[in-house]
């Protein structure tokens, strides 16, 4: 970002702001939608993030606009989650679906049951921090370094969190299959 984009007040102008950040609208919406799990909350969070980014625009020093914006969006989402959680009762932990199963049986179950619906449900059941790294890495294609910036954690934590998230997701899919075959 060069000086010619700044107005007399040192602020970037709205067209520049839109040019830099509106291309990330889909990525932002995807993360917000996966974190908040419904359209209306996701749309509100994305709009709120754009407003905050616009107000903080003078502090944007160029560089990775996507990571900068996603950081803001993520903060808005977690604020919303806190608000929503205080209103709802937590789901009871289902002992059944977390029972361990044998490894060869598991691999077979994974193959058979790994359809879109199971995957979607399993991903929704992951804790927010796990779901987030999967969405940011596997769906949005952010590098570990970018995820570290967005989530405010060290790269090593990104690495271990992503590994645990994937392990957990695989476990959820296998458990779903095991549960189904028992019923």
């Amino acid at each position: 970002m060069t000086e010619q984009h700044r107005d007399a007040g040192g602020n970037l102008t709205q067209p520049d702001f839109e040019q830099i950040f509106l291309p990330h609208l889909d990525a932002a919406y995807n993360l917000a939608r996966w974190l908040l799990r419904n359209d209306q909350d996701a749309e509100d969070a994305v709009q709120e993030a754009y407003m905050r980014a616009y107000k903080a625009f003078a502090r944007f020093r160029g560089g990775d606009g996507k990571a900068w914006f996603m950081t803001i969006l993520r903060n808005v989402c977690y604020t919303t989650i806190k608000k929503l959680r205080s209103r709802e009762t937590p789901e009871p932990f289902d002992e059944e679906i977390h029972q361990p199963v044998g490894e060869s049986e598991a691999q077979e179950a994974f193959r058979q049951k790994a359809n879109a619906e199971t995957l979607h449900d399993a991903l929704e059941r992951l804790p927010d921090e796990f779901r987030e790294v999967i969405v940011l890495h596997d769906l949005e294609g952010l590098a570990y370094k970018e995820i570290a910036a967005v989530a405010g954690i060290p790269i090593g934590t990104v690495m271990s969190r992503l590994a645990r998230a994937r392990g957990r997701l695989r476990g959820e899919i296998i458990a779903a299959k095991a549960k189904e075959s028992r019923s």
Partner: protein
Amino acid sequence: MNHDEAALLLGPYRDGELDPATRLKLEEHLAGCPSCPQKLAETRELVGLIQSETPRFAASPFLKTRIQAALREEKSSSATVAWWRRLSPGATYSGWAAAAVALVILAVGFFSTRGIPELAREGVANHVRSLQGGHLVDVASTDQHTVKPWFAGKLDYSPQVVDLASSGYPLIGARLDVLNHRNVAALIYQRQKHYINLFIWPAKADSLHGSYNQNGYHVQCWTKSGMNYIAVSELGEKELGKFVGMIQDQTADSRPGG
């Protein structure tokens, strides 16, 4: 590299996140390990599955319009704040120079805003508000015969509802709004990804005429057959003008309330 170390690096290996030296060491381990290649294949299978089977939720075009409208609003209100900040005691000499420039810009803005009638400004404010928070329409319908009766009992007049779908300006619904200190009918039309609010209410002695531009929104006002009309949109002047022309043509020979 021992087995435990390697096991932790399988994900980053799959993700292309290892430096060349570490990658080489891991590949050496993979060549001789009985279990790591299997784990790696599982990770690849899972990520492949996530990428092929998980929906990437896409933002609706409406959200984009809504954000752009909100940004425009924010921009017009923050210009004044920025100007005041510049006048703070700590301001530098160049700050004062910038303030002088800002003052001129503000003055121009002020006088050009003053040239816009209150009604047109109200129309823009209503339009912007309608794009925020998902309250664009109270009744969503592309059918003029659904929209028109919807106003019955809500207003003491019946606005004409014109169908322009075949011309590329489909009706998407209606809303009850307040303008000029009274309830008015708001018809919402769509042009590609943009929206047009058309406010309609009975004219008394007043007669509206003119087109204006406020903060990038275009407004056209007119009075026809005893009804006042204000059309507001972020569409270009030309495209809004085309819309207004068609509305005027199709309401020309009708009686108010007919």
